[in-house]
């Protein structure tokens, strides 16, 4: 499964709930696939997507999706410990695992050799963890996460590579923030 296919399924199943997205090509693929006011495009601060999602989940009622990358989660692995500790029932963390640092030239990430983030999540006390590698599996996992109490972590094995024809997201930080905050009200 290509990453943008996975992003399309996640956005489809998320519907109108907030989606926080990690930086780089992942953000650009979400923008191109399913731009909507409930998307927050995190354009810097690599590693923070799961934390932003956690902050939203602890602040308001209703589900929230954080789309993260395997290398970004590795940078902020303490976030999994905090999610396990805080047990936010509404948080759905989707980790797109392409076994690479895509934005910097597809250097292999630690999950290419040894790291299993689904096992790390379980070890942090998160019970609802799944690992999927095809569109049907991802759709099923998203449906479960949308309809049952979490926190949920879904690790998605995706191919390396990027969607053709991507562009820099043509929105400034104030536009991204204000549109997102209005959508959350």
């Amino acid at each position, binding site marked *: 499964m290509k990453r943008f296919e996975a992003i399309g399924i996640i956005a489809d199943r998320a519907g109108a709930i907030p989606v*926080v997205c990690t930086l780089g090509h992942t953000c650009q693929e979400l923008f191109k696939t399913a731009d909507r006011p409930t998307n*927050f495009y*995190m*354009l*810097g*601060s*690599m*590693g*923070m*997507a*799961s*934390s*932003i*999602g*956690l*902050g*939203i*989940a*602890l*602040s*308001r009622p209703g589900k929230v999706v954080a789309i993260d990358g395997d290398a970004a989660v590795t940078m*902020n692995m*303490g*976030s999994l*410990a*905090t999610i396990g*500790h*805080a047990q936010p029932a509404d948080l759905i963390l989707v980790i797109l695992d392409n076994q690479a640092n895509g934005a910097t030239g597809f250097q292999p990430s630690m999950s290419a050799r040894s790291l299993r983030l689904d096992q790390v999540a379980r070890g942090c006390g998160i019970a609802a963890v799944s690992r999927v590698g095809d569109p049907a599996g991802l759709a099923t996992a998203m449906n479960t996460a949308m309809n049952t109490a979490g926190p949920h972590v879904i690790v998605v094995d995706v191919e390396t590579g990027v969607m053709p024809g991507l562009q820099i997201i043509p929105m400034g*930080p*104030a536009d*991204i*923030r204000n549109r*997102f*905050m209005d959508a*959350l*009200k």
Partner: protein
Amino acid sequence: MSNPTDLLYDTVRAAGVDFFTSVPCKLLGDFITRLSADGTVAYTPVSREEEAVGIMAGAFMAGRRPALVMQNSGFGNSINAVLSLLNYYRIPALFLISHRGSEGEFIEAQKLMGNAIGDLLRVAGVACHDIPHPGALEQVSQGIADAWRDQRPAAFLFPFSFWTGKE
């Protein structure tokens, strides 16, 4: 007479802060204990400071007024997120910081970061307020109001003198 912890706690709550994260600190230990017992605020401990910057950004965008309770030594862990998340998106997160390495410090290794913290905050675009004693807590109320008005992060440094009454 109230102790410094309670005076600070009541000041911050009265200013409208309603979402807290924390990294452990001995000087702020009683503050954190009070947070854990206060059912009227959202509170979660975190693994380290940068993570709390992300959590505060999410909380703010979801309508909360967030703060991180921490030691100054941890600010270095969070500078990229302070700049590329808080300042980029103009998110007024607050840092309530025990100032280790200030006068009275007993661990030599704390002193370098203790001396650098003011400059680091300024370089990172965080409004920095020194609060040397509980009598200066009005500056906290004002600094919080300014942060929300300007939509910029702000930090408050509480040195040993704030907690001990010795300047």
